[in-house]
C-alpha cells in the first residue's frame, strides 16, 4: 500500500521537475570556470557570462507551463549586435538589424531601448560610448551622425556636420576621452578619425587619410582610448593593423599585418584598452580576441569558433569598462559575452575568487586546453 | 557540326523548360511587360524585372509579414468595409482582411500606391518609405511621373476599400462544424485534380481544402495565386462549370 503511494509521489515529483525545467526562466547553471591561461600560468581573463536580451530575465513560471498558458509576448532579443559599451551597471548593445540600442540592466533584471522613437530614430547603430553624466553616444553609419541620448532613451542632440571636413561619410567606432572632453569618431569611407568636442559637439580636427604609410588608413573601423594617457588605438581594418596615436592625432606606433598566425590579423574589428594599457582586438576571421601590451607585443589570445562560453561566431565590437570588464559583441551568436581582466586591483578586491582560480583544477584538463 | 546540333538541342531544351514554366511572365501581373495597360512607364527603370514590384532578396519591408520579402511600402492601418457588414448570412463573423490579403489589396484597393518599391533593382535605391517609379495605368497614353503615387484606376480591378461586394475574406472557414454554413465541406476534403497549390499547411496528408486557409481563415490566396498567369484571373483552378466554387461549397 505505502509502496504504491511512494511510487505515485515519485512520478509526480518527476513530472514536476520536468515541467519546471521546461519553461522556467533561465537560472544560472553551474558551469566549469572558463578562464585563460590555464594553470600553472597566472590567470588573466575570466569568463563572466553572456547576455541575449529580454529572455535573460523573462521566462514562464512553472505554473504557467502546467496550465498551458501561451508565451505572453515574444521577448526582444539581440539579432546582430555590433557596438557595445558599459557603465553604471548597464550594458549597451547596438543591434544593426533591430536598429536599436539595448540597455541591459542585470541588477534590475530588465531591458530598455534607445533609438527606437521618432526623435533620433536609428538606422544602423555601430559605435557606442557613454560619458560620466550618463549621456549615451551612438554612431549611426547610415544617418552619418553620432546621436546623443540619455540613458532612458530621450534624444538630446546629433554630432556631425552636413558639409565640410566635419562631415561623417560612414561613422563606425567611437571613443570618448573624459579628460580632454573629446569624442573620437572613425569614418570608414573617408579613412580618417574625426575629433569633436564633447562640450558643444563642434568639429575640432581630423587625422589620417587613405594609404599604406604610418598614419594612413584603409577602411579603419574601431577605436579605443587608453584612459591612462589619452592615447588612441585605431583598428586599421583593411591594412590589417592597429595604429596608436596621441590625443592630438600624432602617430606613435603601429603593429600587426595580414596573416593567419598569432600576432597577425585577418578581419580585425572591435578594440578596447584596460586600465593597465593592454589592448584587446577582436578578429572576425579567427573568431577570437588577441591581447597585446601597449607596445604591440602579443600577450595571449582567447576564443575560437563556436557557441559556448568563450567561443565566438563573427565577433564585432569590443569595449573595456573602467572595472576592466571586457564586453564582446558576438554578432552571429546574437549575444554579448562578458569577461573580466584579472588586474592587480581586482586581485586585491576579490582575494577569495583569485585563490579559487589559482587552485582550480578543471575536471578534464586536457579537454579544456585550447588548440 | 555535331557541336552546333548539340548546343542547339541544349538551347532548345533550355528555352522550352523556361517558357513552359514562365507563369507570371507576360501576365497582367508582369508590370514590366509593355503590352500591359497597367505597368511601369519605363520598364528599364526596374531592369525589366518582374519580381521586384513585390519581392526583393535583401532589404525587404521588415514591418510587413503578409508575404515573404515584401518590397512595397504598405499602410496596414487602412480599414476596409467588410462583407456583410461584419457577418455572413450563415452567421460567421467577418474580420478585417488578414495580412496576406492586405498584400493583394496594397495594389487593388485604390488607396495604396502600386508603383511603390522599397528596394529598386541595382545598387543603392533603397527607401524605407518606398520609391515611386514612373507608372502608367492606360498603356502609356499618360505617364504618372516618378515620385507620384499611382493607385488602381476605377474598374473591375479596383477592389477598393468597400469589400461588401466581394467574396468574404478574413472569415473563419467553418467547414468542420456540425452544421456548416454555406454548404462548406470539411477541411480534410481532397482538392480536385489540377488545383494549383504549393506546400501542405494543414497537417492532413495531401492537398486538401485546409491547405487553402491561412490561420483557419479564407483569404485572397485561398482562390488566387498571384503568380499563376496561365489563368486570366489568377485562379488556382479554372472555374469551368464552377469547379472552383464547388471545391468548398457543396451545392
Amino acid at each position: 500500500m505505502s509502496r504504491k503511494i511512494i511510487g505515485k509521489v515519485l512520478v509526480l515529483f518527476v513530472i514536476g521537475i520536468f515541467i519546471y525545467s521546461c519553461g522556467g526562466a533561465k537560472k544560472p547553471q553551474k558551469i566549469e570556470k572558463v578562464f585563460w591561461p590555464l594553470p600553472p600560468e597566472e590567470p588573466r581573463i575570466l569568463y563572466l557570462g553572456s547576455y541575449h536580451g529580454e529572455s535573460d530575465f523573462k521566462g514562464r513560471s512553472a505554473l504557467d507551463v502546467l496550465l498551458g498558458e501561451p508565451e505572453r509576448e515574444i521577448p526582444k532579443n539581440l539579432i546582430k549586435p555590433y557596438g557595445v559599451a558599459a557603465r553604471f551597471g548597464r550594458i549597451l548593445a547596438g543591434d544593426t538589424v533591430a536598429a536599436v540600442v539595448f540597455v541591459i540592466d542585470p541588477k534590475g533584471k530588465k531591458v530598455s531601448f534607445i533609438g527606437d522613437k521618432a526623435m533620433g530614430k536609428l538606422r544602423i547603430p555601430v559605435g557606442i560610448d557613454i560619458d560620466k553624466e550618463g549621456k549615451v553616444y551612438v554612431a549611426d553609419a547610415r544617418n552619418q551622425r553620432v546621436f546623443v541620448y540619455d540613458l532612458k532613451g530621450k534624444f538630446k542632440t546629433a554630432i556631425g556636420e552636413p558639409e565640410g571636413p566635419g562631415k561623417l561619410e560612414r561613422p563606425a567606432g567611437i571613443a570618448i576621452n573624459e579628460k580632454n572632453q573629446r569624442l573620437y569618431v572613425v569614418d570608414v569611407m573617408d579613412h580618417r578619425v574625426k575629433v569633436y568636442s564633447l562640450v558643444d559637439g563642434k568639429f575640432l580636427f581630423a587625422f589620417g587619410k587613405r594609404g599604406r604609410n604610418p598614419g594612413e588608413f584603409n577602411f579603419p573601423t574601431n577605436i579605443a582610448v587608453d584612459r591612462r594617457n589619452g592615447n588612441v588605438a585605431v583598428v586599421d581594418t583593411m591594412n590589417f593593423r592597429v595604429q596608436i596615436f596621441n590625443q592630438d592625432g600624432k602617430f606613435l606606433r603601429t603593429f600587426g599585418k595580414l596573416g593567419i598566425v598569432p600576432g597577425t590579423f585577418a578581419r580585425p574589428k572591435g578594440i578596447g584598452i584596460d586600465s593597465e594599457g593592454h589592448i584587446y582586438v577582436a578578429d572576425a576571421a579567427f573568431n577570437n580576441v588577441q591581447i597585446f601590451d601597449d607596445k604591440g607585443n602579443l600577450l595571449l589570445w582567447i576564443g575560437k569558433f563556436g557557441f559556448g562560453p568563450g567561443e565566438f561566431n563573427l565577433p564585432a565590437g569590443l569595449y573595456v569598462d573602467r572595472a576592466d570588464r571586457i564586453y564582446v559583441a558576438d554578432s552571429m551568436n546574437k549575444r554579448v559575452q562578458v569577461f573580466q581582466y584579472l588586474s592587480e586591483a581586482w586581485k586585491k578586491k576579490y582575494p577569495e575568487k583569485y585563490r579559487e582560480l589559482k587552485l582550480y583544477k578543471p575536471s578534464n584538463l586536457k579537454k579544456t586546453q585550447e588548440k | 557540326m555535331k557541336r552546333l546540333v548539340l548546343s542547339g538541342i541544349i538551347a532548345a531544351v533550355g528555352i522550352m523548360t523556361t517558357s513552359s514554366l514562365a507563369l507570371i511572365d507576360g501576365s497582367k501581373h508582369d508590370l514590366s511587360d509593355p503590352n500591359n495597360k497597367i505597368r511601369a512607364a519605363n520598364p528599364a527603370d526596374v531592369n525589366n524585372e518582374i519580381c521586384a514590384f513585390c519581392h526583393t532578396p535583401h532589404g525587404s519591408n521588415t514591418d510587413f509579414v503578409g508575404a515573404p520579402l515584401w518590397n512595397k511600402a504598405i499602410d496596414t492601418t487602412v480599414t476596409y468595409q467588410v462583407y456583410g457588414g461584419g457577418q455572413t448570412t450563415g452567421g460567421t463573423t467577418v474580420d478585417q482582411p488578414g495580412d496576406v490579403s492586405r498584400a493583394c489589396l496594397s495594389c487593388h484597393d485604390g488607396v495604396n500606391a502600386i508603383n511603390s518599391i522599397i528596394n529598386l533593382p541595382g545598387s543603392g535605391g533603397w527607401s524605407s518609405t518606398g520609391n515611386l517609379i514612373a507608372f502608367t495605368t492606360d498603356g502609356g497614353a499618360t505617364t504618372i511621373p516618378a515620385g507620384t503615387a499611382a493607385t488602381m484606376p476605377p474598374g473591375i480591378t479596383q477592389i477598393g476599400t468597400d469589400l461588401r461586394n466581394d467574396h468574404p475574406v478574413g472569415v473563419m472557414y467553418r467547414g468542420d462544424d456540425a452544421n456548416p454554413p454555406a454548404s462548406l465541406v470539411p477541411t480534410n476534403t481532397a482538392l480536385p485534380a489540377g488545383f494549383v497549390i504549393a506546400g501542405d499547411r494543414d497537417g492532413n496528408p495531401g492537398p486538401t481544402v485546409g491547405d487553402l486557409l491561412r490561420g483557419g481563415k479564407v483569404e485572397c490566396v485561398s482562390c488566387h495565386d498571384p503568380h499563376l498567369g496561365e489563368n486570366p484571373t489568377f485562379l488556382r483552378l479554372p472555374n469551368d462549370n464552377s469547379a472552383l466554387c464547388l471545391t468548398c461549397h457543396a451545392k
Partner: protein
Amino acid sequence: MTAYLYAAEDFVSLPVEEGGEYEKGIRATKHNLAEYKGKFLNPNIAGEYNLALCMWCHTQNIDVTFVDVEYKWDPEKEVDKFPVYGQTKKGPVLKSVAPSSMVCLSCHDGANAPNITFGKSSTGTSVHSHPVFVIYRKDRKYLRPYNSPLIGWEGKKHFVYDLIKDYNGRLQCASCHDPHTTNPLFLRSKNRGSKLCTGCHAL
C-alpha cells in the same frame, strides 16, 4: 586555381597574368579594396601585384612562416596558425553555413560594407533577406529540379544543382553571388527580366 597552393613568398615569382580571368573582374568593382590612386595598398607582399586583390578573402593561403611568436602570458602555449572562418584542422564546423558565406558576412556588417541579415519573422515569413543556409527543396511546387539548366551563369554553374552541390544541398551567399564577377551586385547572372530569380523559381 593553382595560385592558392603557394605561400605568399612564392607569389613574388609567379608571373602576373595580365587580364587574368578573375583579376580583371574584381579590379573594376567595389570589391577592389586595395587600389588607391593607381597603386596597391598591399598588406604583405613587397612590390605591387595584382594578387593583392585576393588577400582580403583568400586569407587562408597566406604565408605562415612566422618568426619568434611567444605569448608573454603563457610562454608554454603551442603556437600554431589560426583556423579561419568557422573551420578547424578537419574542416568546416557547421554543415549549414559554408566558410565562404562567413567570409562575406565578416565584412557585410553595416560598418565595413552594407549590412546583410537573414531570418524569419515570428510568423515564419522570410524577412530581411532571401532564405539562406536552408536546404534547396527540389520537390517544392514552384522550385525547379536539380537538372534544370542555367543559361549564362558565371562560375561554371550550368544546372541548379551546381549552386548547392558543394554545400550539403544548402543555399549559400555564393549560390547567387560571385564576388569576382563584374555583373551588377555581383550576381552570377544579370537579373534583367528577373532571369536570375526564375533560374530556380518556376514562376
